[in-house]
């Protein structure tokens, strides 16, 4: 049993509020032979500048520190690739730093920029992330990703990271999903939903108009996961600009409050030890007393079924900003849907549903833009961007894309950023005839989860409209 000290569980208290001023993204695709990485990063930066009616040159004048998220040096085959981008963005001689936390790299890049602003070191910081996973064939790419597992204890077994993750999916499937056909169908509905939402996103790499049957008939990757349950492998970049209050309002009339917290867990799933469930504000110890009876095999926490890093990131973040119940206090979320089943696991880790009941978030219709059961707006829409399954997973950019997507809803500019005919044309993509504006009406607060692999790193980002900041946090 692992225990944590009060000092370790201290809720972060920042010195001053931090704002998200703007953000931008490139097109996302499986391969971009026509572009060097710097061109993709410049695309993202240019969109961010344009979003607040600035030129890139004007925007750059505000930046004081830069954080660059780039998961895998060996994918780009360039050590210090961050310095290459920093130079090409013309941001020398500003201090800059590369950030690497696997799949959570994007979120962690924001986490660093956030602390830099909150500390007073900088008034304005750039957080930029990218990945290009097209410079090796898929087979070699799988090997490179597997090198993010333990090189001595895991990588030599198959050189396939999905496999190291899928053992957790199997456990969740058997213990909490009880191998029920209805649960398998709920997983498929996430894949249908996210690929469907991706159809409305000109940036998205994997839009598809599919049915539950299509998912259930797609090739098996690792039972119970099928091809359409899995996320994409992408090339692309995304960036955000963070600032203190004074600078933020100099740059735009509409900055958003932003707060982040991070958690971690063992790189090897094998090293997980038992502990008590760290409780979120909307949970009690008693409600989990019979978890092992309701779900035989489910009493071992976090076991193979919970992501402790996601739990801890939200444990800190909710108390920092005063979230009592994420479903009530938030208007939308962007989650790390690397696989349909890990999406369900995350609903529980971040308290959208109690442990064991994640599936009901989908089955209730709460996670949809429009609840398919009632025709009313979903209570807490998830992954309207298309997520990692439908939009992209350009690792270092993913967590940033999620934050910007949430921001665009709170800015009430989602329709403008996704419906623009010129953007569809520029990305050489056809805007669907039935294109629908997925703007969440009246969105005031949202959350983004950036997650690495089997759960080694997770960040939880909360965005709030400055006129609707929750009370009861530490800020």
């Amino acid at each position, binding site marked *: 049993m*692992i*225990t944590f000290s009060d000092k370790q569980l201290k809720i972060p208290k920042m010195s001053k509020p931090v704002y998200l001023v703007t953000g931008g993204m490139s097109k996302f695709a499986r391969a971009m*032979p*026509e572009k060097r990485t710097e061109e993709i990063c410049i695309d993202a930066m240019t969109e961010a500048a344009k979003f607040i009616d600035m030129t890139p040159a004007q925007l750059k004048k505000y930046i004081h520190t830069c954080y660059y998220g780039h998961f895998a040096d060996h994918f780009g*085959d360039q050590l210090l690739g961050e310095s290459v981008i920093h130079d090409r963005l013309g941001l020398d001689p500003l201090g800059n730093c590369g950030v690497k936390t696997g799949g959570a790299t994007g979120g962690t890049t924001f986490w660093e920029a956030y602390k830099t602003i909150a500390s007073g070191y900088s008034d304005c910081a750039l957080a930029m992330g990218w990945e290009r996973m097209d410079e090796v064939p898929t*087979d*070699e*790419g*799988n*090997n*490179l*990703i*597997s090198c993010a597992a*333990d090189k*001595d*204890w*895991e990588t*030599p*077994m*198959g*050189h*396939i*990271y*999905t*496999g*190291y993750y*899928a*053992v*957790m*999916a*199997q*456990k969740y499937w*058997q213990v909490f999903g009880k191998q029920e056909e209805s649960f398998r169908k709920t997983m498929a509905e996430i894949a249908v939903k996210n690929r469907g939402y991706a159809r409305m996103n000109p940036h998205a790499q994997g839009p598809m108009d599919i049915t539950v049957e299509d998912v259930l008939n797609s090739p*098996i*990757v*690792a*039972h119970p996961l099928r091809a359409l349950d899995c996320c994409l492998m992408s090339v692309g970049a995304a960036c955000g600009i963070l600032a203190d209050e004074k600078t933020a309002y100099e740059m735009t009339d509409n900055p958003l409050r932003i707060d982040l917290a991070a958690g971690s867990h063992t790189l*090897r*799933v*094998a*090293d*997980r*030890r*038992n502990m008590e469930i760290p409780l979120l504000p909307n949970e009690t110890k008693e409600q989990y007393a019979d978890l092992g009876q309701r779900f035989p*095999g489910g009493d071992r926490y976090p076991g*193979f079924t919970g992501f402790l890093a996601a739990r801890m990131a939200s444990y800190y973040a909710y108390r920092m900003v005063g979230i009592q119940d994420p479903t009530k206090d938030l208007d939308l979320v962007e989650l790390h849907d690397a696989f349909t089943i890990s999406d369900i696991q995350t609903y529980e880790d971040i308290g959208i549903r109690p442990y064991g009941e994640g599936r009901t978030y989908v089955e209730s219709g709460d996670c949809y833009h429009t609840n398919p059961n009632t025709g009313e707006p979903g209570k807490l829409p998830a992954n309207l961007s298309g997520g990692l399954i439908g939009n992209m997973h350009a690792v270092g950019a993913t967590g940033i894309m999620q934050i910007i997507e949430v921001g665009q809803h709170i800015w009430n500019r989602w329709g403008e950023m996704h419906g623009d005919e010129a953007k569809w044309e520029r990305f050489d993509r056809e805007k669907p005839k039935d294109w629908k504006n997925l703007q969440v009406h009246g969105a005031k607060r949202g959350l983004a989860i950036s997650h690495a692999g089997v759960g080694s790193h997770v960040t939880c980002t909360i965005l709030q409209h400055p006129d609707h900041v929750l009370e009861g946090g530490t800020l």
Partner: protein
Amino acid sequence: MKMEHKASAEEDSKRGTVKVVNGRYKPSGLFHFISPNTPIKDETGKLMGITNPRDMTFIHSYGGEAIFFESMGLGKLMASRCDNPDCESKGSIFMPFRIHCPDCLFKNTVVDITERAKKNAIVHSFMITERTGAFNTLPTPIKFVNVEFEGVCTILMGALIRGEPKIGMRVVPIFKTKNPDYIITDMLWVPADWPTEDLPEGYTY
């Protein structure tokens, strides 16, 4: 085991090897092989980029885990245990082997859990996949098993090389005692009571 795209015998005969003498690495042979890059062009013949081939050998230290990797070739599974009387995790046995206790950071004691593994190891979870990454040497489909041992606080990942995995089934380790590679695949798993005659080449109970 299958080995696709294997280096030529000539290359392998020259490939670098290393000894440690007086605490220093003494490499001999070739640690990289040079191949020319080639252009990448589009259908009109316009240059888009280049290929960058490479073949290079790393020198990697097992340090305090060497005992684990060496023991598999001797048919033994070595774990480690925190014996610090003041540690809140005192008595915890770790598999994967941890050189130091993650709580008190004292050096762990090496413990032989071969018998324990043979008598009561069970499958905690598993996964079957046809997909592998480049450099894979395991036969497909790969059947990963996560193995629970009585009295061990962690759950080891391995590959089941015979039979079909199931949560809760008893499994037994087998070891590559003939020509060990000194990597984690020197230990594989089979269902309990699997016939000795049907173990993979080079592996024994």
